[in-house]
């Protein structure tokens, strides 16, 4: 093995780091528009799936414009806040603020069956990282119309099953309120009874993700209570 002086090693390291940094920042800058566009399409696609409209990457924009009619932001008292675009609100950042200052985004949609639904974004913690999604409610502000969940890095085959249709379709028709008290939806280990209007089956082997999901729905929807109760039928 050749002997290298300390000076050579320093120069070599410096040159290597500069070359690598240039390459990576170049790649990141060039690919950023494509990546951001992917994320935007993904967000719209998830929202559409929560109102049971299956979308592909190609027709997402078109379907989004067709079905999502309006969006607005509420504060924790259920009053509308002006000057904020609901689509650009990042839920994770909102959750770090005190409750009174949080922006709560709401989207209105009219799917093909004519039902007037509202879509509420939710975000919480799974086992390995964040889980998030959308819950859509029928116009009675109580019955779940559809849900869409996704996750950053839950275990494939276990916790990751929260984004499968089999799991998500269980939520259809579940109720959030019992008279005027907020119950939310429970994720029940071992399976929920068929007539349970507040419960769905948990994922076997994905207990912590299931619990996290239950907490996410409860915590996020609870903030909308004021608005939901006011507009209930």
């Amino acid at each position: 093995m050749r002997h290298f002086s300390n000076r050579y090693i320093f120069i070599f390291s410096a040159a290597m780091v500069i070359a690598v940094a240039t390459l990576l920042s170049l790649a990141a800058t060039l690919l950023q528009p494509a990546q951001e566009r992917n994320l935007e399409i993904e967000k719209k696609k998830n929202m559409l799936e929560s109102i049971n409209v299956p979308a592909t990457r190609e027709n997402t924009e078109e379907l989004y414009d067709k079905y999502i009619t309006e969006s607005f932001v509420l504060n924790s008292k259920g009053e509308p806040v002006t000057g904020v675009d609901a689509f650009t609100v990042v839920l994770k950042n909102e959750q770090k603020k005190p409750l009174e200052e949080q922006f709560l985004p709401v989207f209105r949609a009219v799917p093909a069956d004519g039902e007037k639904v509202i879509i509420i974004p939710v975000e919480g913690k799974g086992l390995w990282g964040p889980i998030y999604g959308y819950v859509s409610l029928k116009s009675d502000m109580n019955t779940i119309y559809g849900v869409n969940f996704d996750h950053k890095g839950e275990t494939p085959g276990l916790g990751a099953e929260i984004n499968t249709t089999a799991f998500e379709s269980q939520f259809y028709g579940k109720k959030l309120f019992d008279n005027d008290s907020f119950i939310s939806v429970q994720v029940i280990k071992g399976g929920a009874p068929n007539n349970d209007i507040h419960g769905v089956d948990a994922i076997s082997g994905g207990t912590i993700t299931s619990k996290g999901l239950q907490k996410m729905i409860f915590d996020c929807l609870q903030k909308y209570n004021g608005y939901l109760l006011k507009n209930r039928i």
Partner: protein
Amino acid sequence: MDNHEKEPIFSAKNLKLLTEPFGNNNPITVQVLGICSALAVTVKLKPAIVMALSVTIVTAVSNLVIAAIRQYIPDRIRIIVQLVVIATMVILVDQFLKAFVFDVSKQLSVFVGLIITNCILMGRLEAFAMANKPWPSFLDGIGNGAGYGMILVIVSFFRELLGSGTIYGFPVFEKLGIYHTGYENNGMVILPPMALIFVGLIIWFQRSRNKSLIEK
């Protein structure tokens, strides 16, 4: 392992670099490297295949780069240099996946980043690329990545079939009507330890066929 004389691109020796990792020099079953990720990504077939492809690309290109600059790498910081090359490649692959095949990148999530810690990469760079010319190193990278991928695909095929009753997401058992006979998916196969058992079975099978692989 010397390649000093001129030789054709696909000489017998070079071809051997490509094919050996599939059999008697498999990174997982013989060198016992890269076991960690073999446990993590083999629950379903699709992520396993994409993981296999990503690892193959990263191994091949890092091998190529390291072999090309091997005479200029100071011995004392060679491990750091190898890591920098691997990490750069992995980040690039991850960025490209995010920009062009977003769905796949979502499927693999954290595992792409974890390629950096895959022992096969460091193993091949240190053991092969540091001492060989770029072209054989490139082939060695492709061979080892693919040999690793082969095991991943075999293990994930059985784990997905037995654990979820599907192949590449297609519900085979449901279509065959096997569930009517009282059969149930084996939830245990989905758990990470079962991947070790499958890898163990493959190692057992391979060594029973080729006695020379058995360690004394």
